[in-house]
């Protein structure tokens, strides 16, 4: 991993299209601004991982799925 030291207000360029700026530092929290093209998705890592985990859980088969799902009253 490349490690760079930045001060508040300073930026990092990743290629031509992505810029990451430190916009605030308070205690142990760093506020980061990200400029990236629209096709690049930016997410908090733990949330992204959580969505993936939930998808995996949702895809796990339940043998008698069709009997478990409630049916609408006709």
């Amino acid at each position, binding site marked *: 991993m490349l490690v760079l030291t930045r001060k508040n207000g300073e930026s990092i360029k990743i290629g031509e299209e992505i810029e990451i700026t430190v916009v605030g530092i308070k205690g142990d929290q760093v506020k980061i601004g990200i400029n990236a093209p*629209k*096709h*690049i*998705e930016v*997410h*908090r890592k733990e*949330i*992204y991982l*959580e*969505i*993936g*985990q*939930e*998808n*995996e*859980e*949702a*895809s796990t*088969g*339940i043998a*008698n*799925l*069709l009997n*478990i*799902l*409630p*049916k*609408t*009253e006709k």
Partner: protein
Amino acid sequence: MKINTKYHGVMEIAQEEVWYFVNGIPGFLNEKKFILLPLEDNPLFQILQSTETTDLAFVLTNPFYFEKDYDFKVDPGTLDQISLKNEKDVAVMVIVTVKDPFEKSTANLQAPIIFNLANQQAKQMILTQTEYNTKQYIFKKLPASKG
């Protein structure tokens, strides 16, 4: 073409029925082609079946069945990725994590699936700055459901 499905056996499907998830979905980034299949006698749910992996299928439902005020803004990145230009072309579904008994099942309202009806492209969008979470209980809120 013929595909093997998890809940519907072997099926003949048409190319134009396939939904393209250009970036896959989180946890399954290489799965880019799915088909939506109805469940017989059960209009509340549909199956999102991978056309390439028989065993990969999700249960989907319409979030507005149980969360009438469900509300979010489709972000510009998503609009761009699935070339969504017209509001009338959009459909929204959420993934249900089914548990036995069904009362324990939850829906993922934090990451709805956005379908562009105009071009068969779709994407699971992760909401940021939202009160919705990945495990929202739905059983009591479904319309006229029998347990």
